[in-house]
């Protein structure tokens, strides 16, 4: 059996047939990842900028801490959020477990350190004269930091892309907090894990190929934004 060509055929077949299960899983994957990326950007980019431009005692500790958070295993994030939103947990009353919202919470936590770190490196590598120049030209302290962010948009967009890549590819959080519910919280990655479990290796790999194609399309769009 030629395993890979069989997968490729299956993938094309699924796309051609507009398979509703696959379409649904793609939609859930993309929508959840975009929301997580958005929320993570709102928290992670300002955090990265703050760490990059401000000077305060304990900054090195904070940066080391941030670097450590890059190594967060998805199952640990999943378990942590699980314990908070399960009916037994402090936020149990909202019934969030096994919903797309739960996945967004988990994946946001996963992506924040990545985005903060990428933003921080971009700022470290930037021309140190940007802020003084902006200040000389009459911008306020806040305005000059904004100027810096605009100048560095390419690098900051890279942070967003890295965060998006991490969340759309992960399976631990989606499985644990989403529960792999068909048509509701089943993502491409949890579907792949499930099909592998059922021994449907070719179908699993086919879904993997579709996931990569979707990621390519999203990245082309982000790239388009980045180049402007």
């Amino acid at each position, binding site marked *: 059996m030629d395993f890979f060509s069989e997968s490729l055929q299956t993938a094309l077949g699924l796309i051609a047939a507009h398979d509703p299960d696959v379409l649904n899983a793609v939609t859930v994957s993309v929508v959840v990842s975009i929301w997580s990326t*958005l929320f993570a950007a709102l928290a992670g980019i300002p955090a990265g900028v703050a760490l990059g431009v401000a000077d305060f005692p304990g900054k090195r500790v904070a940066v080391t801490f941030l670097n450590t958070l890059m190594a967060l295993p998805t199952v640990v994030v999943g378990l942590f959020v699980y314990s908070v939103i399960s009916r037994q947990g402090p936020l149990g009353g909202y019934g969030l477990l096994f919903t797309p919202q739960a996945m967004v919470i988990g994946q946001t936590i996963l992506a924040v350190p990545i985005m903060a770190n990428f933003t921080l490196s971009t700022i470290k590598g930037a021309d140190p004269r940007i802020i003084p120049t902006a200040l000389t030209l009459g911008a306020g302290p806040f305005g000059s930091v904004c100027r810096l962010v605009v100048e560095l948009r390419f690098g900051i967009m890279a942070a967003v892309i890295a965060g998006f890549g991490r969340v759309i590819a992960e399976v631990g959080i989606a499985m644990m907090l989403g529960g792999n519910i068909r048509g509701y919280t089943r993502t491409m990655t949890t579907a792949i894990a499930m099909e592998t479990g059922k021994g449907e290796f070719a179908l699993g790999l086919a879904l993997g190929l579709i996931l990569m194609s979707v990621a390519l399309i999203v990245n082309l769009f982000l790239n388009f*934004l980045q180049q402007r």
Partner: protein
Amino acid sequence: MKPLRTLTLALTALVILCSSAGAEERLKLSTTTSTQDSGLLKVLLPPFEQKHNVKIDVIAVGTGQALKLGEAGDVDVVFVHARKLEDRFVADGFGVNRKDVMYNDFVIIGPKGDPAGIVKAKSAAESLKLIAAKGATFISRGDKSGTHTKEKELWQAAGVEPKGNWYVEAGQGMGPVITMATERQGYTLADRGTYNAFKGAKTDLVILFQGEKGLFNPYGIIAVSPAKHPHVKYDLAMRFVDYVTGPEGLKIIADYKAHGEPVFFIYKK
């Protein structure tokens, strides 16, 4: 800024996309991988969902975890197979109204060559004794599932404490364990439904022991107790239980076939 406008537009579209879902009521069901992987739920759930305009969220895990989800109140109803654990679940007050649904049976599968010679065994316990004596590879679920619980009972009956290089604790579902047993050419205990789904293209292992009374595998359905967890949808859960154990549900279960063979059997009244 133009990119900003594009982004806003995309986000608005997303919000609409998200809010359009979730109009109907949702019932959370935790169950074992065997009911989902066998394909039964795909035919059993839709008639009920349509009739009551409800969406059933299926969380397919091992029986142990499925019951834990019920204990925590994270699901409304559980559909599992480990009679002892189910009875404890009810006795501890987490579930009410346990009802029998259906049954199938466990089989011991292994390589065609049968290195431990268990074909000649008179009982499941004797089979395991022979496997242990030979030190032949045995893959255990090791995940506190219904199948794992049954397997532990059998080892106990055999008077053997499974330990050693030959005894592999996979910690995974039935499908991955059959795949692993196939790759390692070892023995394992499997439910007949999942084995039938794998037989042929996905595994070359064969049934080497079957048909003993002790390998009977009953499935039960239990609504989570509203006394323990006031937020559970008890009424809807009971309606679902009545549907599954009523004539309509039982007929679907009895008629369901995978690869031309029935997977689950219902009790004769």
